């Protein structure tokens, strides 16, 4: 049995910018890899997350699959962290909250400029859109929040270093940005 701390990460309605920022910790990732093992994450090929110590959630909740994934993370992760503006307040995907789902779909798949073969996707494998994009704290209990669009690599490093060491994570003033 591994003694390493298990981390799972996922991107819901986000742009993967937070994951890219995480990778910006650069060579410090080798230091992290000595104490951490990744479960479900874009870095692995694991479909469902198992029991984990830390779950990092990027992106808001925009469709039914996002809800399932988020609940699975909450069930399996001891500590759940909302990473970035989209997970915390819906972010830029939530700008669609001011138009109806119907309008949104019609503009994207039928009426938008340059669309060939216009049709609304209706494959049963596609998750259904929610009427609004929601921040994750409206769906599950969230333990910590890392603001930013994205949070900088130093935020990831500072936050995870503390959490892994069993300390309460605290971000200094210069690391807290909402943009």
């Amino acid at each position, binding site marked *: 049995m591994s003694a390493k701390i298990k981390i799972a990460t996922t991107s819901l309605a986000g742009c993967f910018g937070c994951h890219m920022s995480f990778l910006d910790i650069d060579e410090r990732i080798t230091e992290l890899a000595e104490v951490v093992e990744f479960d479900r994450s874009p870095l692995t090929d694991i479909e469902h997350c198992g029991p984990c110590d830390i779950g990092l959630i990027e992106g808001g909740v925009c469709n039914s699959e996002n809800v399932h994934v988020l609940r699975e993370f909450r069930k399996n992760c001891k500590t759940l962290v909302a990473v970035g503006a989209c997970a915390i*307040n819906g972010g830029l995907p*939530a700008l669609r909250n*001011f138009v109806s789902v119907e309008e949104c779909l019609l503009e994207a798949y039928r009426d938008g400029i340059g669309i060939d073969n216009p049709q609304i996707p209706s494959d049963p494998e596609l998750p259904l859109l929610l009427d609004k994009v929601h921040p994750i704290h409206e769906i599950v209990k969230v333990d910590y*929040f890392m603001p930013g669009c994205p949070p900088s690599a130093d935020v990831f490093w500072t936050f995870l270093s503390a959490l892994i060491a069993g300390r309460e994570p605290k971000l200094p*003033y210069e690391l*807290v*940005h909402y*943009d």
Partner: protein
Amino acid sequence: MSGTLTIDGKTIPFAAGQSVIEAARCAGIYIPHLCHKPGYAPHGSCKLCTVFVNGRKTSACTYPAAADQNVVSDTPELQQDRLRLTQMLFVEGNHFCPSCEKSGNCQLQGVAYHLRMLDNHYPHFYPQRQVDASHPDILLDHNRCIFCNLCVRASRDHDGKNVFAIAGRGINKRLIVNSASGQLKDSDISIDDQATQVCPTGAILVKRTGYQVPIGERWYDRQPISELALGKEDSHER
């Protein structure tokens, strides 16, 4: 009348006519605020500056400083109240900092940073609000308005124009423009008006001035609002 009062146990002087928040500011003590601005008539609406004066809660911006007052501002309870009030302002409007050109220079953001706000706590309202881009030089984005009344006071008291007013109550409260069409282009606002400069958020923006200072190098990126608000010129509260 002048004399001394105490704030958080520190004795400070006050001058005749000063409010508690002004006496505190002159003594180098920051009390968080959004609707208050030096040189403007107090409004007392944002309630962030709520303090205890002789054991009773009141707005520091509207309460006159008086001799021997015992003011308590920096307590965990009051800071928690301020945090929750600020979170309410975020969820009741549509504040998407990454898409706002005022980001980094926004006092709502500055106060939130000061209060160590990492999340919005409450469910979001995502209200339907309009953008008035009709004026050639000035943009009015209702999504970011926090109803501080500063543009109303600036236009009325400093510009002599009465371009803005607050209409409605509660969740139906809204900023309105005094013109036949209700649009900014038909009002007599001008780019030189104080009303165009005074907005603490990105609700009123002068067009073609955004991004002159890169994100990351703006006021609250570099210095906490608690320090900037005590500067002599209050340049960040333009």
